[in-house]
């Protein structure tokens, strides 16, 4: 397997975004790209990532290779890369190590790192694709801000999508608060659009702790897509260049469980 990434920044940010949820995971590499699927320890959230072959130039992978990596170790190595370094991942067919090469685009600096791999025996769990009742697209910075603001008040947020708009509200010991967004189109800056696509009204409650964690991916994409249906996990999707994506699923809170 060999994959060359124009900017190390992309991988850096992806790993940064998920490393608090997952410690060890398998990167499944095949001819279509690199995929990752893992659950957090408490089994409340699931991370799913797909970096399609198009995101790399070039990309070559002849057979399926699972690459088990400890994300903490990977972060350490990725710190050694400049944001706009060219990053090359190399692994053999049944690898013990993965090789990372950083080439500086300006100078002739070339750094090379090997990471020892782990053999992770893990059930492969996925969330079946479903039709969602509500799909909200909004600027990722906006979503991040809402989550950060509300966590000051409470541990959980209820997201209510109606025809009027989408309302994020929470109630805590010191008081309560809410943020309402309406559909809105900004012609000059399309990335600031808020679109609400609603089949039926939805209201669900989620843990803010996890949402704030998801928001670490905001740097990856200007906009974020939230998909909701009653009694189905929330899907938070950050689109990446070349139809790759990073998705988070979060189980809704039911009743008064902690």
């Amino acid at each position, binding site marked *: 397997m060999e994959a060359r990434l124009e900017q190390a920044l992309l991988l850096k940010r992806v790993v940064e975004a998920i490393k608090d949820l997952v410690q060890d995971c398998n990167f499944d590499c095949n001819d279509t790209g690199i995929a990752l699927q893992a659950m957090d320890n408490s*089994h*409340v959230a*699931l991370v799913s990532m797909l970096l399609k072959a198009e995101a790399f130039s070039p990309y070559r992978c002849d057979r399926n290779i699972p690459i088990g990596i400890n994300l903490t170790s990977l972060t350490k190595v990725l710190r050694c890369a400049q944001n706009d370094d060219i990053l090359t991942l190399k692994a053999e067919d049944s690898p013990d190590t993965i090789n990372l090469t950083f080439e500086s685009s300006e100078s002739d600096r070339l750094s090379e790192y090997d990471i020892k791999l782990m053999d*992770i025996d893990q059930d492969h769990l996925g969330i079946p694709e479903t039709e969602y009742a509500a799909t909200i697209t909004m600027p990722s910075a906006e979503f991040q801000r809402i989550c950060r603001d509300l966590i000051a008040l409470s541990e959980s947020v209820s997201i209510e999508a109606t025809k009027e708009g989408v309302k994020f509200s929470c109630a805590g010991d010191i008081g309560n608060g809410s943020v309402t967004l309406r559909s809105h189109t900004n012609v000059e800056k399309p990335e600031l659009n808020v679109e609400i696509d609603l089949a039926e009204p939805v209201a669900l409650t989620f843990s803010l702790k996890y949402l704030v*964690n998801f928001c670490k991916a905001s740097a990856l994409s200007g906009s974020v897509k939230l998909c909701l249906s009653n009694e189905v996990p929330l899907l938070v999707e950050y689109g990446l260049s070349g139809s790759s994506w990073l998705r988070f*699923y979060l189980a809704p809170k*039911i009743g008064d469980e902690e």
Partner: protein
Amino acid sequence: MPAITMTAQKRVLGDSSSVNRNVAPSPNSVKKRKLDRVPSTAGRFQGSQGSQNGKLLSSQPKSQFEEEVLERFTQDMFGLKQRNSEKDQQWNRPSLDDFDDQGGLCFQQIETEEGHLFGGEPTIRLFGVTETGHSVLLHVTNFLHYLYVAAPVSFKNSDCEGFREYLDTLLAQQYPAVASVQMVPRENLYGFQGNQKSPYLKISVTDPKFIGRLRTAIEEGNANWKGMWQGIGTGGLLTFDNLQYVLRFMVDTKVRTSYLINMSEASKRILPSAKRNVLQMAGMSWVEVPAGKYRILLARDRQSHCQIEARVNYRDLITHPPEGEWVKMAPLRILSFDIECAGRKGIFPEAEHDPVIQIANVVTRYGEPKPFVRNVFCLDTCSSIVNTRIKEYNTEKKMLMAWRDFLEEVDPDVIIGYNIANFDFPYLLNRAEHLDLTAFPYWSRMRTTQSLAKKANISSKQMGNRDTKTTNTNGRLQLDLLQLIQKDYQLRSYTLNSVCAHFLGEQKEDVHHTMITELFNGTPESRRRLAVYCLKDAYLPQRLMDKLMCLVNYTEMARVTGVPFNYLLARGQQVKFLSQLFRKAAEQGLVIPNMKNEATDEQYEGATVIEPVRGYYDVPIVTLDFASLYPSIIQAHNLCYTTLLNQKIIERMGYKKDIHYITTPHGDRFCKANVRKGLLTTILEELLLARKKAKKELAVETDPFKKAVLNGRQLALKISANSVYGLTGATVGKLPCLEIASSTTSYGRQMIEKTKEEVEQRYRVENGYSHDAKVIYGDTDSVMVKFGPSDLAAAMKLGQDASSFVSSKFISPIKLEFEKVYFPYLLINKKRYAGLFWTGTEKYDKMDTKGIETVRRDNCQLVQHVIETVLRKILVDRDVPGAEDYVKDTISDLLQNKIDMSQLVITKALSKNDYVAKQAHVELAERMRKRDAGSAPTLGDRVAYVIVKGAGGARNYERSEDPLFVLEHNVPIDTKYYLDNQLAKPLERIFEPILGEKRAGQLLTGQHTRSITVAASSVGGLMKFTKKTQTCMGCKKPLVGKEESAGALCEDCRPRMGELYQKTLHRVSELEVRFGRLWTQCQRCQGSMHCEVICSSKDCPIFYMRMKAKKDVEDAGNELARFDHDPGIW
């Protein structure tokens, strides 16, 4: 207890290999077989409904317990019958025919309490048993309680009567309360008094209940007759000799020498020569009343159920010291019982709602190996059990009353059981109250004394804080094995099951309390099953008691310290010592001040520890010990309350330092033995002498019962001698004397330092020795010396030499002993070391570890197990690489979830509710209470938990989980926690001195840590939404394609199908065999090969293994099934 786990495992494999072919390995077939059996049994039920259940017995296979234990009883009983007048299963005591009320009355007294005759006359009640097995209650009359107070200077003998009258009016009773005031010469124990007695007033009262008020009145200065006591300040007046009536009686009981004909010569020697006529009664000793001196009470005057009830004047009582013939024990009747209650689902039985359904009883006579009464009182019908009487009752009331009548008839002297004090007794009482059975709670020997359960809170340094209940059974001793074991042994878990596993080496099945109701509501057969279980629970405490020799050891402790038997369990350490002190003080005319109990925070310096020179020593390390350090210091320097000097007395007497007195390193002064011999010294000398004697007798004794008694005695004597020092330092105690305590430790420190100096100075190359000796460590009473030579024999010789050399530098009886050599020796830190223990040169005795995780309870068994194996490999096999490999393998297994869950369970006692900091076990107990209030642990229980993976940043206490819950829901275990927080530190400590820091570190981070398994839990918010995508068994690629998804392999791995199928099949069959073996093991343990296993014992390692194996088999079976759908199979 990894050792036990090991043997248990071995037994699984060993036992089952032969059975395996007969018993089908999968649980299904066992179930099937059981189902097959059901119709036939049911058919028989219908047929035999009229004729009760007699024939049913044959249809049910006998369990091992029945076959091996119960059936043997009758065979043995046959032999017993010929020797003994009592018959098997006969309840009542032997008849009084052989008792001659004109002869003497001689019995072993077991309990002593205050009482009154019907006339109101205060007495001491002595309960006991004669050698022929008759129960006795002896009322001892005319013994008056008294106290001392220092007489004022102007007080004359003629003033006594006047003072008595004055006190009498002061107490203002209808009849005379103060019997007499006498002026007697006595000496204050506390501080040296110049060897002079001064006048004291001995004030006796007619009834012991007045003594408290009299004491308060005097102490508060309200009894200052004619203002004779001058200068009573705010402190009040000091009274002397504050002890309970019963103890006072036991201390004071005197006998005339003429009755001492029976005493052996040897026993006379250890009696204080001056006062041979004063003999004091000890607990559990034999007493005798000569013919004609006692009066048998008339039937109408009797207060008790005892066969013989008599009264005697205390002057006519003879006490036999427990020597020679009198070390024997009366044939005490010991009842061991257990009750079963039918609880409701999810709730622990509550007496208000849940009936008692069975009571199993086992009665044994002391000294006989087999119980002579075995029965089960059952509610509803119950099939018969071999050799056991089943008493069936149709209502609970009838059953309870029948049991009470049984109790009265069988008249046990000792009642034992497991957790009877906190569960069985109070439950029965509450239940009877709920059912309005007013005649039920009379379990004592007194006809009119009702048994009541009282709440008590015992808190002591030794045992921590405990809520307990005490139930009075006057005249009958109680031994709750649970309390006793909790007090004397440090175990991981105190359930009957694990205690039996630890001491008797066998597991018992543990039926969950919800299961009991199910069994009870079933058929006579299922109730029989329950009855067998109940009977076993009643029989086990008896076996435990025999094994641990509790009764003998406690009896000896009572005899040595002179307190009543029941004080030993119910009271602390102090009373034992005080009783001895009072005895000795009474002999010498000393009185003991009633000191105010003032808790001070004053600390004194304790023992010293020589800074360890850490490392791994591959040469013999000699250990030199001071034998009984503190007692010998007290003796050598004559430290005592009675020899303590102050400046005033030194000046008055004109004493000179080093001629008349010494100054201890702590700066306190004590007079030398030639001025006055200390009381403590005398007590210690006697104790040590008696111990020597007991040991000597033990060596030649052949009778196993006498041997047990003697061994118990020497243990009791040792404990007593060592507790003397502790009492002087207990600031909250009755008689603290920090001068003694701190002087003792200061001498101790000095001696250790001096030993080090002497040894290092003498054994040097200059002095002709091969190496320079070095003291590498020293603690309290021992020093570890590296002499240098690598030869074991040479080191031992040097050790012998050094011990006699150093001993000669100290005052007798201080003695430095050479006892053992450690070779090799691993010194980790202060109070942490391990080594092979040698006393001879041929073979090591054992592996000795101190302060290393093998003995600590607050970590999981895995740690214990690993550390022990590692130490064994390093020290015994000298195989360091092997130890490293073992650690690596274990860590790798841990990370791949292959370690058995029972190894990871941590237990901690839930000791109080309001912890400031949140703790894992407290939080878990709280969560468990929310899930199921009944089965949740309560205060005092040990909570078992494992640490599971939690959300990022969750605290440890949030991640604790009930092991059973984890098993059921497959919650992933936080292996990282176990590695980093449990294993890492102890392993580093051991390996660092041997391998060096770098290589030791690699053990925890090397290649072997890179293979992990993450279990998929069935709890967690997202789990119900996810769909598992199968991965290829060859390369772990997710199988997503339509074709592949049901199959086992991906396109690329298809060529390997044969190999992988083989592998999976092999795995399945291996797991099936494993499960089959575990299942049969559990069947063996429950004692029947034909019933389903219902045990859910949380302490049993097999239980966790069985549950895990069951899951594994299921999972592996599913894996295998995937091959059926693989597109590549054809």
